[in-house]
């Protein structure tokens, strides 16, 4: 039973990942991601003259902010609009399996996109003696942050039929969660809620990771964040029956 459970997730996941590459979205996404990322990186790299990728990783949340909702906007909204959802959810699969496979498909796609930035660490490592550890740590952190954006975007896609609305709401929600932990927002917040906001903000957890420090607290935070939104997503899908 368990083996079958995983097998079904795997088949659904394969289809989700494949559907990115079946449409031009994948190529546009990776193209934009690489061009913007590389340009922003090298614009400062030689000026600062430091063999580190800190600059790049502090930019990454902003690039992800637009690209992650672009990946997830279609996932539920399009299924609903075209009606394929009816067919998908009458297969012998659980709602949770479908949600999970959609998330894993998007995450794997983001992972592939991140892998393609390999030229950056190679340049940095060959031009100076940068530490490999922090770079690796930052990549992992980027994946966690990206995963959180994706889980949030996927959830938002499930509450609308319209891709564009899903995208705009997704960007707004990701932005809000990223900013509530930012320093200048915290400075203006009442002292009693500031620590809570700092804990909830996606950005504040990323700062330490961008420096290359992986704290288990941050990892637990990201995993819970992802889990909560996937869970909410499954509830939304289930709610079609409650009407």
């Amino acid at each position, binding site marked *: 039973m368990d083996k*079958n459970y995983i*097998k*079904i997730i795997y*088949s*659904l996941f*394969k*289809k989700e990942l*494949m*559907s990115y590459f*079946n*449409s031009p979205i994948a190529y546009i996404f990776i193209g934009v991601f690489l061009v913007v990322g590389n340009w922003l990186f090298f614009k400062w790299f030689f000026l600062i003259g430091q063999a580190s990728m800190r600059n790049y990783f502090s930019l990454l949340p902003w690039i992800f902010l637009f690209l992650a909702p672009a990946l997830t906007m279609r996932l539920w909204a399009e299924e609903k609009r*075209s*009606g*394929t*959802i*009816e*067919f998908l*959810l*009458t*297969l*012998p*699969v*659980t709602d949770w399996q479908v949600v999970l496979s959609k998330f894993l498909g998007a995450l794997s796609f983001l992972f592939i996109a991140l892998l393609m930035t390999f030229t950056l660490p190679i340049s940095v490592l060959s031009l100076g003696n940068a530490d490999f550890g922090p770079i690796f740590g930052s990549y992992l952190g980027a994946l966690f942050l990206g995963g959180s954006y994706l889980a949030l975007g996927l959830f938002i896609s499930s509450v609308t039929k319209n891709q564009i609305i899903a995208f705009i709401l997704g960007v707004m929600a990701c932005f809000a969660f990223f900013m509530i932990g930012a320093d200048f927002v915290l400075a203006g917040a009442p002292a009693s809620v500031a620590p809570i906001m700092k804990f909830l903000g996606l950005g504040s957890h990323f700062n330490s990771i961008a420096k290359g420090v992986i704290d288990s607290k941050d990892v637990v935070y990201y995993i819970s964040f992802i889990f909560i939104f996937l869970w909410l997503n499954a509830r939304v899908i289930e709610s*079609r*029956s*409650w*009407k």
Partner: protein
Amino acid sequence: MIEVKNLSKKFGSTKVLDDINFSVEKGEILGFLGPNGAGKSTTMKIITSFWAGSDGTVHIDGKNVANQSLLTREKIGYLPENVPLYDEMRVFEYLKFIAEVRGIGKDEQKKAITKASEACGLSKVLRKPIDELSKCYKQRVGLAQAIIHEPDILILDEPTTGLDPNQIAEIRDLIKKIGKEKTVIFSTHILSEVSATCDRVIIINEGKIVGEGKPEELMNKSSHKELVYIKIKADKEAALKRLKELENVENVEVKDKEASNIYGYSIEPKKGVDIREYLSIAVTQQGWPILELRRKKTSLEDVFRELTK
């Protein structure tokens, strides 16, 4: 095989289904008939566990579709209305995806895909992307997808809407062929389709079952009058007089005129009496040639309109 008991469905305060009861036996082809918005699709969505009913139960082979849905879904092949498909996929990829999710083992997948695509006449288009296919072929892909795991039950929601008459005939033949070994429920609002394909019909209107039975039974039950049409070469007045005198004849009307002494008459016999034989003898005895004689049977259309008014 399928047992629907006291099924109701509410959206807010509107009742879409109101206490529906029916069962389908193994191997039966059941036609679901009703005007648009009568609750056909809703019933199908509940049977396939896409939605849950507000009240009542649906059992498939004794298993409840609400809480044992993974087991019941395995037995069902479902073609939703308007055939939603993943357009960007190729036919082969799509069928392979379904086969995988349906838990068909790696070795049997190829065989299952070949079998389903041959049955639905898809062999030539397997490599094409679905969005390049014509509507009829999309419908076939939808059917192939529904039968790939050899389910006992097929649920088809308006499988022939939007097709031209030739395609409708093709899909209908396909359903008949596939339906030989399976239990089929299909919905439609095309009436000729029902009498051509179904063993049994359920007519549903405003969320209630208003008629159920074999197509012929339904027509017999109807209060609609059965008429006999006859065209005779004779003087109009004499013919009218003679026809009215006949036994078991309730009423006679002149229906049309072909030439100066050729008229068509519409005769209403007493209910349940077949007067054709007797009528033809009586008319020939008068020395009047019969040019046409036919019974105008109650059509399913009459029944449908009577029940869903």
